[in-house]
Each structure stands twice: as C-alpha cells, then as structure tokens.
C-alpha cells in the first residue's frame, strides 16, 4: 500500500469487552482515565450522564447497547474517550484504546455490523466497525 493511501484516514481503535471498534481520531480530543459520571434521570436511552470537561458539561454515552448489550452499563470502565463532533462534545467510556494510526480509507461495512457504523476499517489485520458519532447523536437528538 502506498504512503498516500495509508495517510487517508487516522483511526483510534477502542475496545469494550472483547469487541474492538474504531473511532475517527480527528474527532478525539482527549483520552481520560476512569471518570465519575453524574447520572441524569429522565435522559435519553444511551445517555449515562454528564462529566465536567474543560469548563463545560459533556454527555457520557454508553456504547455497550450497540455492541450487543452484553456489557453492563454501570460497570466502571478504565478509559474515557472525549470526542467532538460537529454538534457537541461527548465522552465514551471504554475498556481500552490503542494509539491512533493512519490506515487505508474506510470502506462500506461488510465484515462487521454495528449500529451507527456504516463503514469499517482494517487496523493491524483486524477489521472493525468505524463508529459514526454524528449519526448516533442525530438519533439521540431525535429521541430526546
């Protein structure tokens, strides 16, 4: 693969349980450790709560239901990825992340299926869904 092709897209792999998925690294603002989340009663499904981050409150979203719902939502997670979309910043608690790296351009999802992930990427010979934050936020916004 040429260097040009490799530099088309930068992905950050994240893991929840045994499932890896990819985040668009250009949207990642910070990776925090385990955080204390303030629950929001009456919030939309998928909203775990909010955390203070850089002078504002950021919504903490639960990725687990999209991965099959096998990971208890209330289980503390070791890493919290803060991403910023065109709409707002959000935080995703995950069990682990790996360093961001340039990869080949995402392709339509075929090998892996995950809600809000119409594309997939290949990182270190592992195919994983590319999570579409904007699409998910639009869904949550409609539901709210």
């Amino acid at each position, binding site marked *: 693969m040429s260097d040009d092709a490799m530099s088309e897209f930068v992905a950050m792999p994240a893991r929840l349980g045994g499932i890896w998925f990819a985040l668009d690294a250009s949207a990642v603002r910070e990776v925090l450790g385990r955080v204390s989340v*303030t629950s929001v009663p*009456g*919030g939309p499904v998928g909203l775990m709560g909010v955390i*203070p981050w850089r*002078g504002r409150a950021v919504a903490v979203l639960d990725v687990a239901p999209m991965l099959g719902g096998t990971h208890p939502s209330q289980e503390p997670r070791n890493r919290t990825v803060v991403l910023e979309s065109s709409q*707002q910043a959000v935080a995703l608690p995950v069990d682990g992340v790996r360093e961001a790296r340039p990869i080949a351009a995402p392709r339509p999802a075929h090998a892996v299926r995950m809600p809000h992930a119409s594309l997939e990427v290949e990182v270190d010979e592992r195919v994983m869904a590319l999570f579409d934050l904007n699409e998910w936020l639009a869904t949550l*916004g409609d539901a*709210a």
Partner: protein
Amino acid sequence: MSSLTLVRAGGAVYALPGDRVRAVRARRVREAPPSLVPGAPTPASARVLELDTADGPRVFAVEPTVELAAIDDEGLLPLPPLVTRATPRFAALAAFLDRPAVLVIDPDQLHEEDGP
C-alpha cells in the same frame, strides 16, 4: 459566587439555587409531597423542601441530608443540548473542586405534572 442548597433525592444529590429555597422542614402529618426526581420513591422519613417556582411555592420530598455550598460561577457548567432537550429541569452541572459534580435543578422547570 453562587449559593446552592444540596439535597438528596432518589439516591443522588442535586443542587438548587439557594435563593429559591424557602425552607427545609419536617414533613407534616398527611402531607404527601412528590419526590424532587420523577419516578424516584419518596423516602418514608423525608424532609420537605419548600421552593419558589414559576408556578408559585411548591413542596417536594427530599431525604434528610441537606447541605449548603458555595460555588464560583465558573464552576456552573452549561449542559449539552442532548441533556437539556430531554430534561429541561436541569440547568447546569455544578463542578466542585472538593466533591463530585452534581446537577443543578431549575426550580422554574418543576411543573405540576412532575411527581411520582
């Protein structure tokens, strides 16, 4: 600086603007105020929070522990649209330096239909 009254309801701590709290008192006989948080059970040994709201004075059941706190205005963080659209009763996140952050309730968004 803003003064906040911290109350516990439904197992969590919430903050209210101190200048909107008229009193925190024992519950009177036959008084059955709704919980401050919809859906949360009203504790048997509840105290009653008297609040100034947009609908006039209202009472809500809260758990016995009540604290006062002061916070720098920079510690009152605006909530994201995802939260405010779904739950307009929450006005901000109070981020303290020495204790966990809590949601600040907007008394004017507590309406009659809210309750257990």
